[in-house]
C-alpha cells in the first residue's frame, strides 16, 4: 500500500514538470512584460529592474534559475507586489479560496448525490424529469453567466444577499459565490449519480438482495449506494479541477480575495512568478486530490485494492 502510494506520487513528477515548462514558456511568449505599463520608468531604471529580476538573462537560464529555486520550495518574488513573495501571496489567498472551493465541493457532492439518488429511485417520474431538466440547465449555463444573474436576482432585486465582497467570510457573503461555483458540479454529479444508481439497481446482486427479503431501504443503502458512488468518486478529481478553474472567475466577479483573483491580476500584468506559482500550486493540489480519490476508491471497492 505505501509502496503503491509512493509510486503514484513519483509518477506525478513528470506531469508537473510538463505543466511548469509549458506555463513558463507560454507566459514568456505572451507579448509584453511585467514593467511595460509603468509609465514613469526611465530606460535605465527599467534595465536595473529587469536585471534585479534576472529578466535580462536568456530564457533558458531563467528557466533553470526558476527550477532551482522551485526545488527548494521557493516560488520567487512577485514582480508587482514588490515586497511580497509568491509563497506569501498564496498563503494569504489560499484559505479564502479553500473555503469557497471546499464548500462548493461539499455542496456538489451532497446535493448532487441526493438529487441523483432521488431521481433514480423515481425513474421517469415527475421528480426525475424535474431534476434532470434542472441538471441540464446547470450544466449548460457557464458560471460567468450564472453569477451575474444570481447577483441580479438575490442581491439587486430581492436584496437578500450582498452582491460581492468577502467580509471575512461571513455566511451571507459565501452563499452566492459558493452556489455559482457549485451549480455546474451539482448538476453533473446529479446526472452521474442517477445513471450509476439506475445501473446498479439492475445488477444481479441487487436482485439477490431483494430475494433475501431485505427492505428497500437496506437494499439501497447497504447494497446499492456504495457501488453507485464509485463513478461519482472518480469524477471528484475532474470536479476539483473544475472548481479551481471556476474559482478564478467567481473570485473575480464577487471580489473575493482568494488565489484566483491574484491569478487574474497577475496574468494581465505579466506578473510571471505569481502566474507560475498559482499554476504549480493548483497543479499539485489537483494531483494530490486525484491521488486521495484513488485511495478512497480502493477503500470503497475491495476489488480495486492494490495487492
Amino acid at each position: 500500500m505505501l509502496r503503491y502510494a509512493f509510486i503514484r506520487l513519483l509518477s506525478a513528477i513528470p506531469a508537473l514538470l510538463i505543466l511548469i515548462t509549458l506555463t513558463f514558456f507560454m507566459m514568456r511568449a505572451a507579448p509584453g512584460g511585467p514593467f511595460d505599463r509603468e509609465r514613469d520608468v526611465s530606460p535605465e531604471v527599467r534595465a536595473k529592474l529587469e536585471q534585479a529580476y534576472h529578466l535580462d538573462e536568456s530564457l533558458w537560464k531563467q528557466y533553470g534559475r526558476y527550477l532551482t529555486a522551485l526545488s527548494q520550495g521557493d516560488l520567487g518574488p512577485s514582480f508587482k507586489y514588490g515586497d511580497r513573495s509568491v509563497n506569501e501571496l498564496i498563503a494569504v489567498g489560499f484559505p479564502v479560496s479553500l473555503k469557497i472551493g471546499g464548500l462548493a465541493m461539499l455542496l456538489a457532492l451532497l446535493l448532487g448525490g441526493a438529487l441523483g439518488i432521488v431521481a433514480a429511485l423515481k425513474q421517469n417520474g415527475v421528480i426525475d424529469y424535474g431534476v434532470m431538466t434542472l441538471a441540464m440547465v446547470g450544466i449548460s449555463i457557464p458560471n460567468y453567466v450564472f453569477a451575474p444573474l444570481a447577483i441580479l436576482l438575490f442581491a439587486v432585486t430581492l436584496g437578500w444577499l450582498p452582491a460581492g465582497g468577502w467580509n471575512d467570510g461571513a455566511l451571507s457573503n459565501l452563499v452566492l459565490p459558493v452556489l455559482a461555483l457549485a451549480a455546474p458540479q451539482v448538476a453533473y454529479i446529479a446526472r452521474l449519480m442517477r445513471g450509476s444508481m439506475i445501473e446498479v439497481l439492475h445488477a444481479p446482486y441487487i436482485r439477490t438482495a431483494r430475494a433475501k427479503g431485505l427492505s428497500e431501504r437496506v437494499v439501497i443503502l447497504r447494497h446499492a449506494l456504495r457501488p453507485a458512488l464509485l463513478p461519482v468518486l472518480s469524477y471528484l478529481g475532474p470536479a476539483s479541477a473544475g472548481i479551481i478553474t471556476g474559482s478564478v472567475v467567481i473570485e473575480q466577479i464577487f471580489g473575493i480575495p482568494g488565489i484566483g483573483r491574484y491569478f487574474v491580476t497577475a496574468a494581465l500584468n505579466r506578473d510571471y512568478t505569481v502566474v507560475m506559482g498559482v499554476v504549480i500550486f493548483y497543479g499539485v493540489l489537483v494531483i494530490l486530490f486525484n491521488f486521495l480519490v484513488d485511495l478512497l476508491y480502493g477503500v470503497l471497492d475491495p476489488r480495486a485494492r492494490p495487492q
Partner: protein
Amino acid sequence: MSLLNVRNLSVSFNTADGVVRAVTDLSFTLATGETLGIVGESGSGKSQTAMAILRLLARNAAVDGEVLFDGQDLLRLSAQDMLKVRGQRIGMIFQDPMTALNPHLRIGTQLAEVLVSHRGQSWQQAMAESARMMQAVHIPDATARLQHYPHELSGGQRQRVMIAMALLCRPQLLIADEPTTALDVTVQAQILRLLVELRREFGLSLILITHDLGVMAEVCDRSLVMYGGRAMEQGPCRALLTDPVHPYTRALIASRPRLDMDVERDLPVIAGAPPSPIERIFGCPFAPRCELAFDRCNRQMPDLETSAGRQCACHAVSLCKK
C-alpha cells in the same frame, strides 16, 4: 395439500417493441418435500416464472393468475408481507454466483444480514449462525471465510455461499434457477450433490430450473417442460424421460448429446428457432417447429390433457391413445 399451487400464471412485459409474453397461462403444483424440475430452452419463461412467484419481476412486468403458497396468494400480499416470505419462507439461488453476490460486501455481512433482518438477531449472533450454515454447505474455514469478499472465492464456493444464504432462515421452499449452469463440470456435480443432501437435511421442497435433462433426471421427482412461456408436458420425471409424449419433449430428449454419439454428425437438433415472444401466438408455440403439426395447431392452443398423473398439451398426440 400442496405447498405451492400456481394457477393460470401469466407474465408479460411492456417494452418499446411491444408486449413480450414471457409466461402464458401456466399452472403447476408442488407437494411438500417434492422436487419439481422445470426444463426448457433458454427464453422459455422459466426464470420469469420463478421471479413471478417471488414477486421480483422487472418494473415493466404485468402478472396475472394466482400463486398459492401454503394456501396464501402471494400475488395479493402487501409488499411488507412479501418481505417476510422472501428469504424466510422461500429461498432462491441464481444461475451465476459470480454476479449474484455483492462484490462490495464481505461474505459474512451478506449472510448475517438475512438473520438480522428477519430474525432481529444481533450481528454477532447472526455471524456465528452464518458460520455454522457455511459449515453445513461444506465450506472449509467457514469462520475465516466470513471475512472474505466474493472475488476471493471460487465459483463453486460462491454458489455454496448462495445456498447457505438461501437456507439461513430454514425456508420451506427453495427455488434454484440453473444453479450449476455457470460452473465447471466437476463442480456442477458437487453442487448438485449438495442440493440433494440439503434437501433431505432441511426437509426442503425444491424447484430446480434447468435446461439440462441429465440434471433433472438425477434430482427431480416430477418435471414440467416449458416452451414459449407455456407448459407442454408435465409428469413424473422417470416416466417423462423414458416415455415422452409431447413432440417437444421428444425432440428435447432426442437432441441430448450422449457419450456414444459422434456429436458432429449425429446430434439431432430441433429445427427452427423459438418463437419471438413479441408476436401474439394463438396456437401452440411449438407448432412452427413441430413435425406433427397440422393447421389446427397454428390456430388454437391445445388444452392440457390429464391422465394418470401426467399432463400434455398437444393436438397431435394424446396421453390416452398410447
